[in-house]
């Protein structure tokens, strides 16, 4: 089922499936936000925004408005 990154809850993990939206800045891809990479939500600020993510070992914060364009699939912890 298609889902987007903004719906990720704290402690959940997901894998990125698609980042082809024009609203995703290139810089984010360059920092490792690419299909197939795993994402974990570290912390959210009040109102769920911005989101503090761990993408394959890169720790970064993005706003919710960007996160909704990143498509993901939630996965369970091994």
């Amino acid at each position, binding site marked *: 089922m298609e889902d987007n990154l903004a719906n990720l809850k704290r402690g959940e993990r997901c894998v990125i499936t698609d980042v082809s939206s024009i609203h995703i800045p290139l810089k984010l891809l360059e*920092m490792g936000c690419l299909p197939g990479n795993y994402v974990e939500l570290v912390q959210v600020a009040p109102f769920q925004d911005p989101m503090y993510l761990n993408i394959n070992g890169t720790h970064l*914060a993005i*706003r919710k408005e*960007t996160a909704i364009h990143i498509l993901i699939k939630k996965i369970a912890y091994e």
Partner: protein
Amino acid sequence: MSKQINVALIGNPNTGKTSVFNALTGLNQKVGNYPGITVEKKEGICKLPRGVKAHIIDLPGTYSLNASSLDENVVIELLLNKNDKDFPDVAVVVSDVENLKRNLLLYTQIKDLEIPTILVINMADRMDYKGISLDLNYLEERLKTKIALVSTRKKQGIDRLKSLITNYKELSINHCIDLSEIDKNYFENLKTAFPNQLLYKLWLVITQDVNFGKADRNEIDAVTNFKTKSKADLKRLQQKETIKRYQFINDVLKKGQTIDIASAKDLRMQFDRIITHKIWGYLIFFVILLTIFQAIYDWSSVPMDFIDKTFAVLSEWTKTQLPKGAFTNLLAEGVIPGLGGIIIFIPQIAFLFLFISVLEESGYMSRVVFLMDRIMRRFGLSGKSIVPLISGTACAIPAIMATRNIESWKERLITILVTPFITCSARLPVYLIIISLVIPEGRIFGLGYQALTLMFLYLIGFLAAIISAYILNRVLKIKSKTFFVVEMPNYKLPLIKNVAITVLEKTKAFVFGAGKIILAISIVLWFLASYGPGENFNDAETITKKEYANQNLSAEELHQKIASHKLEHSYIGLTGRAIEPAIRPLGYDWKIGIAIVSSFAAREVFVGTLATIYSVGSDQEETIKNRMAGEINPILGGPLFNFASGISLLLFYAFAMQCMSTLAVVKKETNSWKWPALQLIIMSGFAYIVALIAFQVLK
């Protein structure tokens, strides 16, 4: 003269690039600006074996050659311009062993420009801790380069780096990636059209909005079929390019790097769950801020008193020891107090930069950006605006320069426009002297009235900034792409050397930058106050003596009367009289008026100006203060500095835009006179109205 090797240090932010720079050059470095823009240009000289020297440029940190900020533009502009005198003979790409994969993206881009490239893998001391091991021979072979494994913390690997730089001619200039595999058709066509040009360079010129050599751009525009691709198509190609680069990197690292996850430790996530927490995060931030302010005021008062006294003594000494004359007077009453007025700020500025640089070096500042983004966005600002707003308490100039990494132009512009409302250190001396004159010394709940007033002034400065940001956000119709990506780097213990160099540099920049203006103003003021037109000034002595002939004044009193008569008819006195009608409704006399006018060069001139105008020999605060307390309002009677005029003056200084250097920096950063002009008119107009209301209500 032996030939210098031009070296460019390039790397992602937070890779310790500056530490490598400091290790190579030591104190042998200088900071300037790139022509026309205020991006800092750091360069230094490194001595290599056999008398060879390397000229090293520390380029701004960037994640990729696809620039998204002014700082990053500088990097590609240099790397694409072979004619630039700083064009590197060799590029040194600095990477962080913990984030090798991401750092290599930039590396593969640089390689595509066919510049000889050395790869530095920094922070090697953390490899064991992180369970990382590297197959350096394999990496060198696949990445077609030489690698220096460096730890600036343990001072390892720098010698190898130096010898690699010395022998840079042996480095390969082959690519890692074949661009044309991304879109065969498109890139083959490009290649055929420009057989003499580097493919990746063409691609960068097409996709970037930076100012390359005009020739390049025109050449490509002339052959129009390459622009036919829509923006979206180009972006799709860039995405493909990025994925392609990562495929290559992943492939290389699969064999070249092993990470033993079991022995890897990462306390960052545990830390950050608390430090960026909804409640604890804000509480910790608040406590840190409080501590900083407390420390700045407490710690700097001792050296400031010392500097104040030293200059008073020096001025006195000059007056008594040197031969009498105009030159001695200029020195003792103009230059020395002027210099003192600059140097007295050094302790505070240095402490503030010390704290800010520790917060940045440790990685904490990124957490604050994360915490504040949502709140700041309500007011049209970005989380990244918090850094300029905090540095604004030292000085608006470096603060405005710190806005450069805000990606959205609108958010950045608003931050630039509101930062001067933040109470900067130049307002402090004005606040302190007026508060001590007009606010009683009592206490409420254990807090002094005077301290509370000072806190209140900081608060209204901050509120003015936030509220005007909110209004600007509504009024300004600027459509700009807003995106927000902030890296949360690992926490690091700041390197003392790095912090020390930053503090030294910034303080130096303040002293020489602002200092020149303050010094010039005090000299000009002294001249204007010491000379005047016509008989009224030149015959002051005879006129005064005649006037007070039958009043039996002591020699001392008579001397005072002559001096004040002279002042009133000096150039400065005449100017003051001319502007008096405008400021009288605010409760000021012409002397305060002069002080305000000269404050437009720099606020801190206020106290010094009054010192000069009240013809006080020494500039000890007590003396000026007593003088000010003794001034009588010529129209209303009673002390000139009373509660009403004092509050009015404080509010005026809180809101008015009185700093030419800030205006100049705003002009540079926004590339237009419109914004500084608006700041000057709106802020000062608002200050006038508020001060007027305050005085008329309170008097």
